């Protein structure tokens, strides 16, 4: 066999190995219900329940932050994060959590949040504009 064919085979083998490893590691976005009983980390998409309390008290523990999130199916769960409360968490539109269920709490190791204002700045703050008219 020619060397180039051997190399070709090796390349194909590695490519397949890469694909398999990616597929085996990747998960689908899950729900809190599905997360129960699974012992590995997974991702859940949802949004913050703004009615319920966001708990972060740096004086008691600077590394404990908890809140309630509703997943895409509308199920709600308490989420605990070992860290500080991300800035502007209240304003988030969507949250992607990575972590796992521990009892009835979801312990998140990563929080990715999408804020409406951060990269789409196209919101003219009309109230602010009005406030300025008053002072002129």
């Amino acid at each position: 066999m020619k060397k180039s064919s051997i190399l070709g085979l090796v390349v194909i083998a590695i490519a397949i190995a890469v694909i398999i490893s990616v597929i085996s590691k990747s998960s689908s976005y899950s729900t809190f219900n599905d997360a129960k009983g699974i012992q590995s980390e997974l991702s859940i998409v949802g949004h913050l329940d703004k009615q319920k309390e966001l708990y972060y008290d740096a004086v008691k523990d600077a590394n404990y932050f908890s809140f309630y999130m509703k997943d895409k199916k509308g199920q709600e769960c308490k989420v605990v994060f070992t860290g500080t409360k991300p800035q502007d968490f209240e304003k988030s539109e969507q949250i992607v959590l990575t972590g796992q269920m521990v009892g009835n709490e979801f312990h998140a190791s990563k929080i990715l949040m999408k804020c409406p204002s951060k990269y789409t700045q196209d919101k003219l703050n009309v109230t602010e504009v009005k406030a300025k008219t008053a002072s002129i």
Partner: protein
Amino acid sequence: MSTVFQGEHLLPGNLGQIFVILSFGSALLSATSYYFATTNTNKLDTSWLKMGRWAFFINSASILGVGVSLFYIIYNHFFEYHYAWSYTSRSLPVYYLVSGFWNGQEGGFLLWTFWQAVLGNILIWRAKSWEKPVMTIVAFSQVFLASMMLGIEFLGARIGSSPFLLLRNSGIEAPIFSRPDYLSFIKDGQGMNPLLQNYWMVIHPPTLFLGLASVVVPFAYAIAGLWQKRYKEWVAPAISYALFAAMILGTGVIMGSLWAYESLNFGGFWAWDPVENASIFPWLTLLAGLHVLIVFKNTGHSYFTATFLVLISFVMVLYSSFLARSGILGETSVHAFTDLGMFWQLVAYILVFLVLSIYLLVIRFKEMPITKKDEETYSREFWMFVGAIFLGLSCFHLLLVTSIPVWNAMFGTKVAPPADLVGHYNIIQASFAMVITLLTGFSQFMKYKKTDITRFFITTLVYFVFAALVTALVVYASGLYKLHFVFILVMFGSLYSILANGKVLADAVKGKFKLAGSAVAHIGFSLMLVGALIAAGTRGVVSKNDKGIVNVSGFDKAAGDARENIMIYKNEPVKMGDYTVTYIGDSTSEPNHFYKVDYKRYDNTGKLKEEFVLMPKVQINPQLGLAVSPDTKHYLLHDLYTHITALPPMPQSSSADPQAGAAHGEENDDKNYEAPVTHEVAPGDTIRFREGYMILKSLAKETSIQNIPLTANDVAVGAKLEVFSHDKTYDAEPVYMIKNKSVFDFARKVDDVGLKLRLTKIIPEKGKVEITVYQQPEKLKPWIVMRALDFPYINFLWAGTLIMIIGFLLSIFRRNKELKTV
């Protein structure tokens, strides 16, 4: 319709828009003319060529016109323009106005098309016989870039997004836009995202865009070579341009990670964010292409692979710009742009160039100078080829994972990226890096075509053993052995490569100077990996402290890295690793709030070894909330990095009516303190409180108190107190007053210690006075939560980058010299 708006400056916008349209039209004309100039069989007829050139010059000039118009608008704060309003504000200093210029997507395209125009002009000047076909491609690419800035409705669809869009036309709904004088209400722009207000953001985007733009040149040469059937000739000039593109692109990417390290707060320099990954796709394929081009030039092998990699590099540039700009990354990236309605336009740009590449590769395949003979196993070209393939595989893996949202959109699936994404990338990419570094090492001991096998094995083995010894030492000293095994292998590969290339460099200095470039670049690349590996792998959390932690039951370490944050009260020193840190105060320089954190390090005997103050900053932006940037103490061999992670709730507004506060009076204020404690003291006595003590120095009769006139019947006594707390001394003088037979007293506050002091009674018979001490509960004292990290040997990463750039430069000089002689 008939409303005449007041105060608008429409001229620069109209002018700018004309330049945008002109740049589109002239690019189109230039591409067409160059096409006909290329296909024209009459060699004496230069009319098409002249037209193509002039059209390209007009294109370049109009791009400058666009830039000048846009800068004029930004510089003069014409907030009637959406771009100026969105990205700048009056308070921005001029150098950030410059970076506001490329803050938006339109500005990014402008920068890109500007660099492409510059490169085009260089090609017109230098490319000689290649000018016609190469410029056809460059001008064609200019057409697409210009179309991105058009912002014109065409057959019901909007093409491009113009930087000269007026705010009132931008789709933002607000009642004020119906008023002719709406502009008088818009006093200031949105301002720039505080995270982008960093000096790296002034130079990183131009560098990165120059890198991205310059990939078009080797691409155009490859296309021209296939099109004009000048299969072998295009390689030599393309190598120089490819070297340049790879150098600038690499520099741009590293500048981006320097920015992330200095101004973002994720605690590192690389986060495997999709946008970051996308920026290195073209770099990896271009590096691979470069190596195979050199193989082909020296041996005539691997023609197809070389051409393919060069072609795909430009397609990768387009694809990465699609990922960053189309909004498709939505759920996986934090810094992708949102869709400006150009999704399909961006797709079209990729597809046109991809299809063109594939088409030419297919129809010319039979004619390509492909060798039938295999490479020798013990030849440099074979292993360079293997290395290039592994670079390609590394890119393939990045592409596969980063594009998960794209696969989801294409196939309607809902796959999430791996949960431990960073770990996944680290391990797989490290495996590729190991192979690649080993190859850059031992292929140095081989020669093109045929190598003396015994000698090769002996030298390789010697260096192998030596590298293994050094690796063992480094791994042990840096603590790298605690990590996954594959990282140790990368360390080995990198050190091996440094040693092997070091030998080549040593030989080069002795005379074979032309080999210096690649050796230096390889050393730089490996050094980068060494630095990145140690810094990211053995990054230490300094801000650990067990004091004052209330354990929350049921909470375990399952949720990743725990307890990296530490809370410190103002003026209370806290021990943290080797350091004693104190939060000593704030300072404000609008819009930045700096938190001064004092670091002290003592040696074993308790002697102060060093002291410095870090000032991590927080910027409060009305639109974007709080933006946190770290401050870093740089040492030669490590960095100490500190940033704020939480703050007490901000007072709603600092200007919130001071009178209102005063009117509610003392009682309200007392609620901020614990129950008062009274002390009867004589001058010289000491009063203790939770965080220190105070001494009543003396009692003094006051002659005037603030604005209150005192008459002969009135009495005012001040108690001079000296307050000692946490090694600091403060003076306070509460006052007691009898005026018109009524008793008043004036409290004094020592905010730093959280004290309020009153002189509440004078007891003449005992010669004593009564001092009432109010202490703030601990909770209300100012505090910050911060995280401090230690990055060891991170300077290797930056130094490696510099060395790699030098290596690229040397190679460019060498290749250019060869060009002249040939």
